[in-house]
């Protein structure tokens, strides 16, 4: 059985908790430590052996040091990470953010959901990206 590895960059502890709650219910997902910003995410990935690299990267847009779009830029311009699906999610995802993210090669842009059910649905949609 293949365990899908999700790497989340998220600085908000409540949102980190929501993610962990979600993982608790999913045995098919492999746990990677959550990173608190984009710069840290790139550091962590640079130190990973290729077979350990995540199957899906979730970036919060508003993070200190490196925000979602900046991190996305670096991920997509690095041939080693280029093919890993990346999604950006944010409290406020307007047309502008969506357009910019899509141009930079994001696979999906989402608004942070307002309840747990929404959170699960969002995650399921994200996960479909790595089954392609």
């Amino acid at each position, binding site marked *: 059985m293949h365990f899908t590895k999700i790497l989340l960059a998220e600085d*908000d502890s*409540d949102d980190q908790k929501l993610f962990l709650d979600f993982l608790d219910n999913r045995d098919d997902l492999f746990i990677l430590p959550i990173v608190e910003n984009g710069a840290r995410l790139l550091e962590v990935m640079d130190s990973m052996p290729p077979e350990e690299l995540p199957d899906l990267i979730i970036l919060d847009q*508003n993070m200190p040091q490196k925000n979602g779009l900046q991190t996305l830029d670096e991920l997509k311009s690095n041939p080693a990470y280029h093919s890993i699906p990346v999604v950006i999610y944010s*409290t*406020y995802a*307007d047309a502008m953010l969506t357009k910019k993210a899509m141009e930079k090669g994001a696979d999906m842009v989402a608004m942070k959901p*307002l*309840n*747990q059910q929404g959170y699960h649905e969002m995650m399921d949609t994200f996960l479909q990206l790595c089954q392609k």
Partner: protein
Amino acid sequence: MEARHRSIQDYEYELELLRSQLEEANETIEAIRTGQIDAIVVQGDNGHQLYTLKSADHTYRVFIEKMTEGAVTLNNQGLILYCNSRFASMVNTPLSYIIGMDFEQFIAADQLSSYKELFGKAWTEDCKGELSLENENQFMPVQLSLTALELDEGKALSIIVTDLTRQKNNEQQLRDNNEQLAKMNEALELSNNDLQQFASVASHDLQEPLRKIMVFSNILKEKYGKELSEDSNHYLNKIIDSSGRMKALIIDILNYSRLSENNTLLQPVDLNELMHELLEDFELSIRDKKATIQVGKLPFLHVNRGQIRQVFQNIISNALKFQRPGVDPVIIINSKLVKSLSFDSEEDPNGAYALISIRDNGIGFKEKFATDIFALFERLNPKDKFEGTGIGLAIAKKIVEKHHGIIKATGKEMGGSHFMIILPLNQQ
């Protein structure tokens, strides 16, 4: 010896004689000055003598005397041979004193050197210069136009003196006004920027905690709703509803503030196609409310598609929302081309403006609220009956105005609303 014996009467007689001679002489001078005479006859030792005036050109003498500029003639020493009365009033000195004075005496001390330069240069070529006249600490900015004249008696210099006081005042005022305008512009730009930044930051930063309120009250409800009392559930729902309304408000404010940004992308838009797409989005609501919507032929416009879509979306959603109780909504959308940007403008198939009308049979509004409804946060109806943020029509108005158009609404209470929008077909 004889003089000693002259009586007071003799002196008075002589004084009277001299006085009348002076008067006569003054009259003569005045007559010459004002051009009333071309020649004078004077009784001399050898009988009558005729004096004609050189350059005795009646027209020009009148002209020079009456003109609003000062006119002065100088000899090669710079002494004043002649001046008109305008110049005398400019330097606030009686005419009779001026003749024979050095023109330099009327030049402001700090500008003597530039006057001397002009004076020296004028003998070989016409020249002009700006400086100040001075008399008893009264300064007057003037322009001097100097021209050398060849007269029989030798060379002379004619100077036209133009009072620049008003011009200088105007220039100064213009400069002051411009400066003030620039300052105000700057302040306005700053406050606009501040406002936009405030709206954007406030909206972004307000959303974060708000979302938490929503997420956790939702989780509370999902997880523990069953364990809570009916009262507790009621309060929890209030929290969820209110935070939902606040979220809608914040997003609307954010959108409203975004409209001030100058990043509008214009493109040709087929309103027919746009309206079709919009009505598809409303399909559910239209079916729910059993609404009938009729759309006539609409024009092509050169606009920002997303923004214009927002205008119609806001107006149509209002038309669906403010339904009269028990009456199925009817909305009629139509358009025609008109001559000018005015609601009185007549129809013109070749007009450069499109008038789009959206009419409904809903609750309408009191005529006196016709302008109020476009104000930010204006709500005419209680929000427990009709949901909404009160920003929709303000946004619509701002977008229409951004596209150099106009919008108005007419209506009667319980008699439906009628929105009219005029937009230029092309944005210049």
